[in-house]
């Protein structure tokens, strides 16, 4: 497989079935460093499965995924887990913060899991919380903050390891318009400033408008609209 020139993460001929249901049927994808690509399509079209395959969370039945020149399927589970911790960041529709930890401890968690000292991890976490305008929440627990604030904390957590690829699955799905827009502004600004690639799964056009280009997934097949129009 020859990935598109300069791409950081690419996939070809991805096929994935869950029992009799074909979730991906020849999907393709590529993204460059610093690029924000929206993955759009109706519910059940396969867009979340595509994201999970690209992130190495789900193994496709066939097809290839290349990340920085390495094939994901050739890695062991342990190698893929290590890659997810070191190079990938994740934001989901609901922040999935750990309720027992304070916000700053939540943001620092990925660094702590990678072996960084508590002091250093929390210093870096606070830096990202300032950028996401939630540093005043550092001592609060997730149950004490609003949905919009919690999602900004989750974005800070996804960026704290300086990931090269950020996977965002409906990151504003649970927020109102104003909070959703602010989260998208902060997320895309932060990612662009660190040259991280963002794979943004969304069905909302206003969210997709923060991307550089979009691909459309329908019936498990993807279509890169930049190459079509």
């Amino acid at each position, binding site marked *: 497989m020859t990935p598109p020139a300069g791409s950081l993460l690419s996939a070809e001929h991805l096929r994935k079935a869950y029992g009799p249901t074909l979730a991906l049927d020849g999907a393709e994808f590529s993204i460059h460093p610093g690029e924000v690509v929206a993955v759009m399509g109706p519910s059940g079209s396969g867009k979340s499965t595509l994201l999970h395959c690209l992130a190495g969370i789900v193994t496709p039945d066939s097809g290839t995924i290349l990340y920085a020149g390495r094939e994901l399927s050739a890695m062991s589970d342990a190698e893929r887990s290590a890659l997810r911790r070191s190079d990938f960041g994740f934001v989901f529709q609901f922040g999935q913060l750990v309720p027992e930890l304070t916000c700053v401890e939540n943001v620092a968690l990925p660094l702590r899991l990678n072996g960084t000292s508590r002091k250093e991890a929390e210093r870096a976490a606070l830096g990202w919380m300032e950028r996401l305008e939630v540093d005043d929440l550092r001592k609060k627990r997730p149950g004490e903050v609003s949905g919009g604030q919690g999602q900004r904390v989750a974005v800070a957590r996804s960026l704290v390891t300086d990931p090269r690829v950020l996977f965002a699955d409906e990151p504003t799905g649970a927020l109102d318009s104003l909070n959703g827009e602010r989260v998208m502004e902060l997320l895309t600004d932060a990612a662009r400033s660190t040259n991280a690639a963002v794979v943004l799964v969304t069905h909302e*056009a*206003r969210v997709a408008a923060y991307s550089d280009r979009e691909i459309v997934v329908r019936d498990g097949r993807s279509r890169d609209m930049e190459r079509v129009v």
Partner: protein
Amino acid sequence: MSIGHTLLGLLESGPRHGYDLKRAFDEKFGHDRPLHYGQVYSTMSRLLKNGLVVVDGIETGGGPERKRYAITDAGITDVQRWLATPEKPEPYLQSTLYTKVVLALLTHRDAADVLDTQRSEHLRSMRILTDRKRKGDLADQLICDHALFHLEADLRWLELTAARLDKLREAVAR
């Protein structure tokens, strides 16, 4: 909506008289605004002059002459180009977009393609507005928001239509 392209598209299934064309147009696209005969004949004269249709036969009965029109290769190419070119995103596009989707289905083209291309064009406009909003003051933000909400409404219609293409295909085939 381009009446010329719509009439051309209707001719793709076979030659028709002006009257048949008007009837087919009114049935599929006219709804509460049927075509006037004058519009049909002036449009057909223009298409004839431009080489997009030819007169396939003339019937002379008791009444006036009835010309039967057939689409040319150049006409088919013209319809193809029109369907493949997205409309400039602007308010109240629904009638043109609806016509394009139905015509694509009637002529066995990929209607999902028409919708995808249009979505992409709308998103292109939304990206420009979003960027302007990010860099602008509150007045810019409010003006851009207004335009963005209108484009978003169009996009919702595009998504819903894409989800209903199979049903629409059955309906237009009846």
